[in-house]
């Protein structure tokens, strides 16, 4: 076992973990933050996307011990009190989700996409989402949600 101290959604968690514990399992099973999902075992689907020190990462490719001393943000940590993040609202208003399973990872990726490129073209949005798979929406309304969120962001 290895002692780690990881800040998750602003709360410090100091605990012991088995060194091979994936960050996603640490989040889901130790902290009960089940909004982060697992959709594959090869880091293709992006359902497990969280932020590590402000960067979107696939939490199934990172060990909990690698997050020691770092800050993690999950889907549960992006709303501002009772108000959803503008990207969450955009997904709702544009019908950017159906079964909801890919949604948390997609939202976490999309927010970072706009941070890096606040006014992306459709092609840039599609390229930026290539690491997140969705089987329900055909991506169209996810792209629409990101576009709508970008329009709400000051240029």
């Amino acid at each position, binding site marked *: 076992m290895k002692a780690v101290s990881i800040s998750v959604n602003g709360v410090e968690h100091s605990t012991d973990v088995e060194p091979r514990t994936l960050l996603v399992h640490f989040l889901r099973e130790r902290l009960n*933050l*089940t909004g982060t999902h697992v959709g594959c075992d090869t880091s293709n*689907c992006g359902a497990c996307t969280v932020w590590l020190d402000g960067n979107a990462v696939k939490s199934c490719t990172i060990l909990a011990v690698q997050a020691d001393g770092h800050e993690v943000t999950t889907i549960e940590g992006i709303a501002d009190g009772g108000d959803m993040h503008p990207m969450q609202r955009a997904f709702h208003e544009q019908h950017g989700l159906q079964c909801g399973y*890919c949604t948390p990872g997609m939202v976490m990726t999309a927010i970072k996409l706009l941070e890096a490129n606040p006014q992306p073209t459709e092609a840039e949005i599609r390229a930026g989402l290539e690491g997140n*798979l969705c089987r329900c*929406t055909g991506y169209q309304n*996810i792209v629409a949600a990101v576009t709508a969120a970008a329009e709400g962001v000051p240029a």
Partner: protein
Amino acid sequence: MAITTETSKGMGNAVLRKEDAEFLTGQGRYVDDIKLPGMLHMAIVRSPHAHATIDSIDGSRARSIAGVVAVLAADDLEFAAGVPCASNPTGQVRQPERPQLAKGKVRHAGEPVAVVVAADRYAARDAADAVEVTYTPLPAAIGVEAAMAADAPLIHDDYPDNTCVVIKNVTDGVDEAFEKADVVVKQTIHNQRLVPCAIEPRGVVANWIDASDELTVYTSTQIPHFVRTFLAICCNVSEAKVRVIAPDVGGGFGSKLNCYAEEFIAAAVSHKLGAPIKWIEERTEAMTATIHGRAQDAHMELAATKDGKVLGMRAHYVQDCGSYLQLLTPTIAHLTLFMAPGAYDIQAVDITVTEVFTNTVPTDAYRGAGRPEATHAIERMMDILAMELGMSRTEVRRRNFITSFPYATATGLSYDSGDYPKTLDKLLELSDDKETFERRRGEARARGKLLGRGLSTYVEICGLAPSAVTHAIGLTPGGWETSTVRVHPTGKVTVITGTSPHGQGHATSWSQIVESELGIPFDDVEVISGDTAFAPYGLGTYGSRSLAVGGTAVYRAAGQVREKARLVAAHMLEASPDDLEYADGTFTVKGSPDKSKPIGEVAFRAWQGFDLPEGLDPGLDETVFHDPPNFTFPFGAHGCEVEIDAETGQIEIKDYIAVDDCGRVVNPMIVDGQVHGGVAQSIGQAVYEGAIYSDEGTLLNGSLVNYLVPSAGEIPHIETHRTETPSPSNPMGVKGIGEAGTIAATAAVVGAVCDALGVRDMDMPMQPERVWRAMREGGAA
């Protein structure tokens, strides 16, 4: 964190979904999110061989791993019956015994052989890898040709030619049609094997309480009630003591329309060990543990006049069933048979379906389930006929469209309603005219790109199904659906539905129906689904049936509640029920606007129960079992334009236009979303996806690294349009839209590529190498 919806409306409005908030904030509850006290984790040992005898299973090394509780094989668990198949189209289907854990022999790579149970999932995984199984490999039959060969290895000893069933539909006049035809076109058209890949893999949590013999199973399924019935049968427990819960389900597409070995195994292991058991499928495991789809070859022949009128059709569909029959395996190609003539008036047909066992993962319903196969084959044939005759692809279709309804097909169906030329006209209006396109085509060629256009004018079958029909076609269960509409004393409404949504937005659409039919606002309606403890029974969500059958049950139950409330209100107002008007949730005596009762007051009185009309029972709570009189038949015209890199063979879909007619629309936003997703999955089949087996039976692209589920970068913008032809099969006039996009798109995309390359046909998936070869060698002969 409630989402505030805009002024919500009833049917026909693009109301935002009430389901969304929990998913967007990480509060969805999927099977893997469920934790029970004392829960143990199960992992499954699977065969690496496609066909082998099991010589020994040694769990001793696995048992020595810290945290491991048990290693169990077939002899350690008792089942009263094997994994069920509920489909027997001819009454002659060969249904091999399919044990939950392999007994002595495995018949496909991925078949469960043993299980390990441990305190956490990592230990369970380690232990599964440590179970030592020795096999003696046997020759395997991979693909239908190998399985049908004279010297093919026998997959099931009792079935000498590896044939599962042969189904025929032969009318009079076929030979005559071919004799008098000016032209006969023949083509073999392949529908490759696909892996469904719902983004949430399957999972089960089973909890068998020994003292009371109560079994609760959470499972990622489209059909919780079926699973309950078969758990009761297979695990020998009273159905009245089994509760199955489909919590939030992360996509299904037919792959969760099944009763799987792991559901029974988890229940039996929970019983044996006295602890809740969780099994969560890994993705790489899912690729060979969950059903595959398609895997069908169509040997097609059309006889036609020189004017393009089709006189007759011969079709032989050969279906790869895989190694065993899952819940509906034999029915899938039967659906292909039913829809074989497509949107065309072809009364002379000679259709044979041959279903074959092979040493591969069983196939079953995958979005569209037999209808994409039918549509792809007939639509490709119409293109090939047009090419043969030098006629336009739209004209050959127009000359054969069915134009009067109801229409009795040569396969025994009655198409309910339609206007096929109208959707085609609308597609053509939305597309460039020929001159403009040819000009652009010339310009593209100058920059090394080949442009092509394709179309598909599909009709499909939804609203499964009239129970008399399900019985006639050899399905064990009926096709009805249930709904309860319950008005509480405070005027709020609970809808309990037998449908089991996994992304379709039933809570939203059913609330819209209640608002329209009962006059109680959308936001005051809660919808409960997916839990067998609540609904009387539910046949579940598949086959684009939920709205036409389950939605109609909601509509009828809401109407019954309204009419009962009318009796109560009339009594309260001392008026005749016929003299009451009902609008905006209030009963008013005609001509006396001051004499009125809001539905809430009426519900309260019905709950109080005193001074009700003579003979009327208390309560406002109605349940409907709705059995539809006929299927529904949505239709449409899809068109697409592709641009192919003449050097690399890379396909880019530049433009995709979908014109669908799904009858009356309850929520256009949800309908568009279904079309987008369906088309995307079909583009996946056309261009990217396909399960590849080695000759020995290893799935070579058995993970998402090399099985190409398309990402946002591969899917184009999809333009959606509609016409609206109500269905006479139900009072709302709705048809169904969940699978239309998947059914329509492959033929349009393949047609566009053939047009670009000037070839007759192309096999799918049209990955660059295949296109590159076709540019040099001329495509599929």
